[in-house]
């Protein structure tokens, strides 16, 4: 294994960040966003692997400070592909159960947060993307629009409708 790893020649990308730095800084965020999206740990790890393999192989000319948006964009694209490809399975088998991965100290506190995480996981893909980028990753509407390649008005509209759906779901009401 070490022999094959040594054959991988990583050169620093245009932003000057090495693979190690990018992985340490953003891999957990990528993994969690993918997990929020897919609700499956194995698939989330597969997506994270695909994203960083793409980073290594393509070595895109990333501008400093723009590495994370690029990684999240690729992550969401990959999640969307998986989400579409497994549509039948989801419809037939239902949504996968959103599993919690709390640290040992947080187990007691975590259980009452489950409902929000599950509600986000049950959102339609378009709504889920904007919620994750805006509320979880803290990007503004214009940044979200740029990452997803859609209009700012569309982002605002989706955020509003996503909030409404979440509110309904958390109250136990049926979504239209």
């Amino acid at each position, binding site marked *: *294994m070490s022999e*094959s*790893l040594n*054959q*991988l020649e990583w050169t620093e990308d245009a932003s000057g960040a090495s693979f190690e730095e990018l*992985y340490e800084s953003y*891999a*957990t965020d*990528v*993994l*969690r966003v993918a*997990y*929020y999206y897919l609700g499956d*740990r194995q698939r*989330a*790890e597969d997506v*994270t*692997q695909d994203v*960083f*393999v793409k980073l*290594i*192989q393509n070595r895109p000319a990333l501008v400093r400070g723009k590495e994370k948006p690029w990684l999240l964009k690729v992550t969401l694209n990959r999640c969307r592909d998986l989400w579409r490809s497994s549509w039948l399975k989801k419809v037939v088998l239902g949504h996968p159960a959103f599993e*919690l*991965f*709390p*640290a040992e100290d*947080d187990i007691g*506190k*975590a259980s009452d*947060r*489950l409902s*929000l*995480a599950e509600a*986000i996981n049950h959102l339609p893909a378009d709504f889920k993307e904007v*919620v994750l980028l805006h*509320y*979880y990753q*803290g990007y503004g509407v214009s940044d979200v629009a740029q990452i997803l390649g859609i209009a700012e008005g569309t982002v605002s509209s989706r955020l509003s409708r996503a*909030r409404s759906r*979440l*509110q309904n779901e*958390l109250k136990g009401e049926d979504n239209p």
Partner: protein
Amino acid sequence: MNSLDQLPEITSEILSGLKADETLKHRILLSAAESGRSTRVPRRTLVPLCALSALVIALCVLIPQLSGPGSSSGTSIQVIAAGSRRTSSPIHLHSMITTAANLDHEEKAACDDSPSGVEELSPENDDFSVASPEDDSLPETESPAE
């Protein structure tokens, strides 16, 4: 929604055990090394492979055309005698070449002093015609020796 604004904190609580660890990093590096190896080799060999395939296809097309049908038994030329009578016996190309070489050799030996070594084709006989050994009706050419 207040709880949505607290999503980063909530996530760090409920998913604090979900981290990209060294195992995943190792998996990524290994996968990148393997897929890089499998994708680079075909690109490098693509051009020679295409050239080789084109050569093989060209040879497959050209070789049958060059050798022609019935090439295993030698090339035969149909003989038409001077009297326009079609003979039934073909002459093989390699025997013609051998005969021509022998004639050339004899010609060289005899051309110095003997006027009878060279046959001249008559102007009327401009067809390429060869007499077969069995054929009695030779082309009407005048030999200087006679």
